[in-house]
Each structure stands twice: as C-alpha cells, then as structure tokens.
C-alpha cells in the first residue's frame, strides 16, 4: 500500500491489534450475511437501509449493496414520501458519498451513486421554483468535483465526472471559464493527460460554436505546448496534445514551422524519443499532404531523414524496435 505509515508495534500491541482485526472480520461477515438475506427476502425497511449505510462505510466497493440501497429507495421510500423528504434523503446520500470520496477518490461505485442521486432530485421546493433543489445540488456538485481535483489534479474519475456535471447543469458555465480552469491545472502540473484532454474538448466546442477563432487559438496553443515540450520533452501528455493540435496537418506552413521547432529541440536534447517519433510523424504528413510544394529532391531528403530517425529510435526505444522497423518499410515504399 502506498502512503501508509509503518508503525512499530510492541509485542502486546501487535497481539491486541490482531484480536481487534479478528473481531472486525467476524462483524463484517455477519453483516454481509444479514444484508444478503434481507435482500433475498425483499426487505425494504428502514432498518435494512441503515444496514447498507453501515456496510458501505466499511466497503464502498460492494456493488450489490449499493443496488440494494437504491432498490429500497425506489420501491419503498420514494413511494411513501413527500418531495421534501426525498430531497432530504438524497442530500444525505450526497453528503455521505462526499465523505467516502475523500477516503476513496477512485471508486466507480461511489461516483455512480452520486449521479443516480442527482438524477432523482425531485422538483421543488415550491411550484413557483421547481428547479430550486436541482440548481442547488448541481452547483454544490461542481464545488465537490473541484475540491477533488484540487487534491489530485490527475484523478480521471473526477475529470470525467466534471464533464458530466458541466453538461447537466441547468445553467451552463461559459467555455472560456472552463478553458481558464484547464490553464490553471496545466500550469500547476502539465503532466496531466486529463487536463489537456479537457482543453481539447473545450476548444472544439468554442470553435464549433463560432465563439473563438481557431487560427488565433491554435497559435497560442502551439506556444503553450512548445513551452511544455522544452521544459520536459519526456512527458508524453504534451506530445499527444501537440498531435491533436496539428491533426491531419492540412496547413503546410504550421507543419513546417513545427517540424523545425522540434528539430531544434532534438538538437538540444538528442536522446528525446518523442522528438524523433513526432518528427517522423509530421514529416510523413508533409510528404503525404503537401508533396506538391516541396520539390522532388527535397522529398527524398525528407524521406531519408525519416528513415535515419527510425533507425535511431530502434536504439533509443528498443522495446518498440519492430514497430519502428515496420514504419520504415512503409515510408520506404511510399509512392513519391
């Protein structure tokens, strides 16, 4: 286990601990048996509900118990309760799972239960304000997910959930503020696949809705990612984002500018695998899409340099030796 402090036990303390552990285990097994049998008997009582609370506090990965809890709510509680009571019990479950997440930030069942709860929130508190409860809950939810990302900015459960919350909120947040959010996360630590991914999603939306200028954005993004590449050329997340920015490489000017920028980085850092691999990729795009604007002689130069890079890659990254070999064959056979 990570991050668990090793404790020095004296002999008596160790024996006492073993006794306690044994008692705990027996209690757990008894609890499991009782819940399962109540479930089999269709027991949807308040008592059964409290037993699931007790169990989930100990083992939040027990899917059967989560589902039993939901069944109790749907088949019994919701039918007999006022919207106010339903909202209260769901708020209670949201509070409980918030506490669980602090301890177990990466358990799917907990995140899933929150989704379910949020989707069950009834209309209210009044007929005049039917979205009041929902709004309050969604707003709180965004706060919870930000707190989770403050603790671990690379928790992909939280990022995924963040997208779900943003999409579900009755009043949408601006894409620009979400872009700024990813900027902050990336500046704090750019080795973060999720943050770069979120950025690509947000930018796509901005472009599709005409809220931002793709050409200007792309230039700024390239500058940002270039700073990250030079800071740490060994970080894969940066290169993947760069590749997304370049895409199919339809703009020959950008493609050539990026190739020469990466070449400069490679000259400074001659063992950078990602530099070499990206150069091969972008030069291939250049050959495929823009062979007309580079002369026949230059085409051969580009081709040869790709083959050289692949040869070097076979040494630098020998675990993928055959992959580079295959790529070399494909480039050699390119019809240009």
């Amino acid at each position: 286990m990570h991050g668990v402090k090793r404790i020095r036990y004296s002999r008596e303390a160790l024996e006492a601990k073993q006794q306690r552990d044994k008692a705990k285990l027996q209690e757990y097994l008894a609890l499991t048996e009782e819940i399962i049998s109540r479930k089999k008997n269709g027991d949807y009582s308040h008592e059964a509900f409290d037993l699931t609370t007790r169990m989930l506090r100990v083992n939040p990965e027990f899917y059967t118990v989560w589902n039993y809890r939901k069944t109790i709510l749907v088949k019994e509680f919701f039918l007999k309760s006022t919207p106010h009571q339903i909202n209260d019990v769901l708020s209670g479950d949201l509070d409980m799972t918030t506490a669980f997440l602090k301890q177990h930030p990466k358990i799917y069942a907990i995140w899933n239960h929150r989704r379910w709860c949020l989707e069950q929130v009834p209309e209210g508190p009044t007929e005049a304000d039917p979205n009041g409860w929902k709004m309050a809950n969604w707003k709180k939810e965004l706060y919870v997910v930000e707190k989770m990302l403050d603790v671990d900015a690379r928790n992909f459960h939280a990022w995924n959930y963040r997208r779900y919350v943003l999409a579900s909120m009755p009043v949408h947040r601006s894409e620009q503020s979400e872009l700024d959010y990813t900027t902050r996360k990336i500046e704090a630590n750019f080795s973060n696949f999720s943050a770069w991914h979120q950025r690509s999603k947000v930018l796509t939306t901005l472009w599709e809705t005409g809220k931002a200028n793709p050409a200007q954005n792309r230039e700024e993004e390239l500058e940002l990612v270039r700073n990250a590449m030079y800071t740490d050329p060994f970080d894969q997340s940066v290169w993947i984002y760069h590749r997304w920015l370049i895409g199919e490489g339809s703009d020959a000017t950008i493609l050539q500018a990026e190739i020469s920028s990466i070449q400069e980085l490679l000259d400074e850092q001659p063992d950078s695998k990602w530099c070499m691999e990206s150069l091969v990729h972008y030069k291939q795009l250049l050959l495929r899409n823009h062979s007309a604007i580079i002369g026949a002689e230059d085409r051969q130069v580009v081709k040869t340099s790709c083959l050289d890079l692949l040869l070097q890659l076979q040494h630098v990254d020998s675990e993928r030796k055959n992959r580079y070999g295959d790529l070399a064959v494909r480039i050699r056979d390119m019809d240009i």
Partner: protein
Amino acid sequence: MDVDVVVLGTSLSESITAAALSKAGYKVAHIDTNPYYGGDDASLSLDELVSWADERKADNDASSYLTAQRKRFSGISYFGTLPPQSRQYAVSLQPTIIPSIGPLIDSLVASGVSRYGGFKLLERVAIYDSPGIVKPVPGSKEDVFKNKKLSLLHKRRLMRFLMFAGGDFENKPELQESESVPFAQFLEQKFSLDAEAIQVIVYALAFCISATDRTLPALQRIRRYLRSTGRYGPSSFLVGHYGGLGEIAQGFCRTSAVGGAIYILRRPILSIASAPSETSSRKYTLQLEDLQEQLQGDVLVGASDYFQDDNTTQENVVGEATSCSLARCIAIIDRPINFSVSSSNEQPSETRDISVDEDGSGADSLEVASEVDTATLIFPPSSLEGGSSTVSVSVLITGEGSQSAPRGKWILYITMPLIDEQDTTETAEQLLRPYLNATLSLGSRSPEMSAALEPLFTLFYTQLTPRNYSTPGDAEPLSSIIHSGSYAAYLPEIADSASINAEKMFWRAVKALKALGKYPQRSQEGEEEKAGEVEVESMWPPLEYVEDNDDW
C-alpha cells in the same frame, strides 16, 4: 543533586541532546543562565530582545557566560522605538528556513516533539534584481514552464540541470573531476547555462555563500531541497511558528522534562569543579548562583560560552565546518514587502485569461506583484551598489502567517556571512544598511512612497562563531566534556546542522558514560526497571503506538 549528564545551555542542539539522553533513561539536568529557553537560537519578545542587546552591550561586571557572550555578539546598535504589544512578536536569534526532508524533521518525528510545534510553508524565494524589482526563482518544473522570461533553449538547459541535480549524480560523468571546482564554473562548463541562470542556481537554489563554494556540496544541497518539495506542500522549506528554532528547542526541553530531566533557568554558574565532592562520586561539581545545593554529574555537554578556556581541547567540540561569523540585522516593519517582478517579463499567466471565473477562483493568477508574508530574498554578490562583491546576503521575512508578528507587522532578518578579513573592520550597520534600504524599497510599487518606508525598530550586530571552534576529525575522542559548536552558515542548513551536532553529542555522551560504567536506568522497551548494563540502541526509542480511531 546528582545526575548522569549536565547539559549547559538550551540552544537547539543542546536541547535535542538533552531530550535524547533523557528519553534513553539517563538522569539529566539542563541549565541555562538566561531567563528564557533557546540560548543563541532563542525566540524573544521585543522587550526580551532589547534586554538581550543591552546586556551584551554593557560593560559592567558579569558572569563568565555573559562575558563570553559579549565577546561573540559585538557592534550592537539599535534604532527606533519599540512598537506596542511586545509579546506578540517572536524574534529569532537564529533565523532560518527548514527543508522538509532532513535530520531536524526526522528528529522531530522520531522524538514525538513535532506535536508541540507548528510550521508555515515558505511562500516564495526570490532574487534581488533592481530597486523595487525581484526576479522569480525557477526551482521546479512548473516554475520553468510558466516563466515567460526564459528562452525555450534555456528552459531546456535549466530543466536538464534540475533533473540531474534531483537524481543520483555521484557517479555521473558530468561530475567526474569536477566535485571541487567552483559551482558556477561547473554549471557553465557542463550545462552550458548562461550567467543569469547560473546566478539563480548558485545563490537561490544552492544558497551558496560565495563564488568559491564547491560543486559537490552545492549539488547535494539542491538535491535535498528539490526532494523536499511536495512533502508538506509546493515549497521545499518550512518556517517554524513563534520564531522557529527557539520554539522547537523548547519542545525538545518539554519532552526531556517529561522523561524526567531537571530544568534550572536564569541561574548563572559560579564554578565548575572537576574534583568530586564529599557527598558524591560524580566527576564534576557545579555551583549555581542562589542555589544552595550543588549539582553533580559525570558528563558535561554544553555551549562553549559556559566553559572556561582551560577546560577546552579542540577534540571535544562538535561543530560544523562551514560555519562563519555573521553580520545581522533585525528590523520590524509595518508595511508589507512586495515581490514584484518586472512587468516586462511576467505578464499575467495568459493574456486572454482576463475573464475572472464566476466564483473568483481565477483572480490570483492575475497578480503580477504580490505581498509576501513569509519569504526569502537573496542578494547575490555584486547585485547591490554599496553591498558586498564577494558574499551572498539573505533576507528572511516573517509575518503573521508564521505566528511571529501581529497582523500588519513583519520582521526582516538580514544575514551576511563574514568571510573576508576586510568585512570585519566595518560594523554590522555599515555593512547591512544598503541591504536594508534595498529590501525596504520593495515595500511599495511607487518610488516616491518607498522613501517613506522606515522600520519601526532596527537592530544590528555581529555574531562571531563560538570560540575554540575546530573541525572534528574522524576519530571520536573520549571526553566527558563535550562542547556544542557552531551551525552551518547556509540559510537552509542551520536547523539540520543543529540536529546533526546533537546526534554526535548524544553518542559521545553515551560513550563517555559507558566508559564510566554508567548505563540508562530504564530499559528502552518500557518494561520493568532493570538494573545492569542496558545498551543504548538508537537515539530515539520507538514511540508508543497510538490507537487509530477507525470508526466501526
């Protein structure tokens, strides 16, 4: 009163030693002539600070301890009037920043003393650039990434160096035959760094004192500081609450009292005699002022200022080789210091980032200048007109955040190592005035206002390293008088060198006691008291297991 060990002085190293000896089961008496804990590391209220200065400035008759102190603390001068609420200030006589990984933090954890103290993360380290302006110190990947001033190429080179320095470099080819060359030369030759980056690394990452500092120790310091980031937060360094080391020393004293040690403060020592008295077989007899009962002990551990010259031989001093005399300034200010970086090089992180989030969480990324509460500023050699051309001068700023000053007040500590002969001909005030003024110039963003920022109170003095200082050899001498020596001169190394000294003193004391046939009276397991020869196995016995409160 009859004990195994008498510890003289309550500075951090002596207090750690006393706590370890007491916890191991020895009978310990711990004495300090001063009316406060901490000795030369003490945290003092403003009133206490002034009487500390006055006592050392005066030339009336004094105890041998005070006479020795007067020789070591010289050129004392102070200005201004004391602000009210004197007790709300905790002024440190030993200002320092503590790396999150190292011997002191280890001792705090292993001894359980950590529960008595609190810390604040150091917010910033910056380098002085020009009047009113500082340069940020890119000490991490994130800093390098965000820095708008560094060129792409220099980002790469700086990062390559940081990766090297953070790793196991001892056998790397870059270091071959370069371990002893000046650090700056190494950085230029092996990492092709430019002068500006070199200055930052040498003085603000390795905290070197001068251009002659050698490569290997500088690299080892940087490695430890790099690895310290993230343990307690984004900064490598901690600043102790309530004045730092003095407060920590007191925590160790408390632990040692819990272990049964006897504490006697504010009693000057009248005599230390090596002849045993009639009533005791112990080696030494001490007579304290106004205390009828004599104090007998077999081993004496203490600050040099407590001993007469003739008791001292070079071998029994436990000190740090890099220590040196210091010119110091302590100033109380009532306006914050701003670490403004020149506006041309650090725009808000993204120009398009102007729209502040609905929830306002984006606001702080827009700040160019920022007020600091707990921060360090470094003046490299030749960075200041009228300043030193050979040594680096450090400024530590502590405020309300480190519980050392009331709201709206800050304490500045300026420290200049004196390695040049010529430096000692000038007073601390002459040496440090230019640095004080330059630091105060950061108090406001407009030059007109900076003229008005005057400290409420300023104290200057020169602190000489303890006399009889020597570099201890490899051989561990057997002596029943052990002197605690000086600390390292590097700002982040002071606390750790106190801890390292303490560990050496502890084992020397254990060895000296063993040679006299004295063993701890309590076994380490906490079992029944056992008479006989119990060997001391570790400096800190295992802490008692505390039940974790799991809730079901």
